[in-house]
């Protein structure tokens, strides 16, 4: 039975690890780890002996993968980081996603420029996954504001869903051998065709393991007032699929904005989903009043969760991997801000408290019970 909560906080100045008992009353902070450089992805791998992985985006010496086998007390670089073949022409610019595979030491890694890597030895060696990395669309994808990044890897047996900004949603049904663009209903506001085959700016995709076929997507919204070619595109920012990502429909009605970055599903109820709407132009809290919004019916309606959060004068951003939820019986949400605050939303987001208020700008937050 899990009795510790491990929270990893990837920031502009390295990785922090916060640890608490399962009561989640007090968190002890360790770090920063990783040379004080940006960390955009982390993984608390609780399979077997827990391991923590984190990317380390070193602008001087290139990308590294950090690994800890003592719950984040110490970290060492793995023997290798993902790297493109020498004759490929692409060079690794960032590591955006680390997720576990089936085997205990198996890892999948999404990178910038958008490509997928696989490791079967805990990150000591990596191989390019050609089915998506060399996909016929790959050289046609364009970078979004955060770069051309493969930021989301969602696995479901032989199915694998990838989120690429800006490439869209790609689906494999053969364990990652081959991929196809699967963006029916996924809109784009920055190209004349409102529903292109691929090239959407997907921000995050989430699923619940007990809801076959159900997926949620935070897409790049904020196009309801667009008046150019193709006309306005309301509600394209928050989407749901019930057919394994083959088609998507809007669930944005009732939200103050369909723009945002993270989307998180409740660990025990696939109908409960959380988003963090942002004002699309500034990408900060609407009206300076932060709120997490929760739906308890799969996105048909939404309720604002603000108890404990600032009521005004707060203009931060929560980035795509900046929110997560633990798996305890009464789960807590966690989000980190670009202003360096780490918030906990106890009782499923009913009550918010600031755990740390002066960290470096936060890129990613991942939590696990170990």
């Amino acid at each position: 039975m899990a009795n510790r909560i491990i929270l990893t906080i990837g920031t502009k100045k390295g990785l922090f690890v916060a640890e608490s008992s399962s009561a989640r009353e007090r968190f002890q902070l360790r770090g920063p780890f990783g040379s004080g450089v940006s960390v955009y992805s982390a993984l608390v791998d609780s399979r077997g002996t827990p391991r923590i992985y984190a990317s380390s985006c070193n602008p001087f010496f290139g990308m590294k993968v950090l690994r800890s086998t003592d719950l984040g007390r110490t970290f060492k670089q793995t023997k290798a980081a993902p790297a493109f073949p020498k004759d490929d022409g692409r060079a690794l610019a960032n590591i955006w996603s680390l997720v576990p595979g089936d085997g205990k030491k198996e890892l999948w890694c999404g990178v910038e420029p958008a490509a997928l890597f696989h490791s079967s030895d805990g990150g000591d060696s990596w191989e390019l996954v050609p089915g998506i990395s060399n996909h016929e669309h790959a050289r046609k994808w364009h970078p979004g504001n955060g770069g051309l990044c493969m930021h989301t890897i969602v696995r479901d047996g032989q199915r694998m869903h990838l989120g690429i900004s800006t490439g869209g949603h790609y689906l494999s049904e053969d364990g990652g051998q081959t991929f196809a663009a699967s963006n029916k209903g996924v809109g784009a506001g920055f190209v004349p065709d409102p529903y292109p085959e691929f090239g959407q700016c997907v921000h995050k995709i989430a699923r619940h393991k007990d809801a076959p076929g159900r997926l949620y997507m935070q897409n790049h919204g904020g196009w309801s007032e667009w008046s150019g070619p193709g006309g306005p595109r309301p509600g394209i920012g928050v989407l749901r699929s019930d057919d394994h990502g083959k088609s998507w429909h809007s669930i944005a009605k009732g939200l103050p904005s369909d723009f945002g970055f993270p989307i998180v599903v409740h660990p025990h109820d696939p109908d409960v989903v959380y988003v963090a709407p942002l004002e699309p132009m500034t990408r900060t809290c609407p009206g300076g009043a932060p709120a997490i919004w929760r739906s308890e019916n799969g996105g048909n309606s939404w309720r604002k969760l603000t108890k404990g959060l600032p009521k005004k004068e707060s203009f931060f951003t929560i980035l795509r991997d900046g929110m997560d939820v633990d798996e305890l019986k009464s789960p807590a949400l966690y989000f980190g801000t670009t202003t360096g605050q780490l918030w906990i939303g106890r009782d499923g987001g009913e009550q918010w408290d600031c755990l740390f208020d002066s960290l470096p700008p936060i890129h990613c937050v991942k939590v696990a019970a170990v």
Partner: protein
Amino acid sequence: MKRAAQITVFVPGPLRECCAGAAELSLTAANVRAALAELERTRPALHRSVCDETGAVRRHINLFVNEQHMRDCNGLDTPLSSGDTVVILPAVSGG
């Protein structure tokens, strides 16, 4: 064609863990490109921290031959003479 020369590579502090703590490495190379190729062969972790997969020197790394930046000489083709030092330094940048 210039003959290979015995040179020294100076390794900055943050990269010494790539070469068992060594601050200096001795190797034989006719120019900077050959020196990097030798590092790739003998010290792959160090090379990966200095060059990306395409072989380009990373954007925030500066290479000097003695006191001259290689870009002010002949880039990667800057010739090396016996006793030269190739200095690896991270650029001054931050935020």
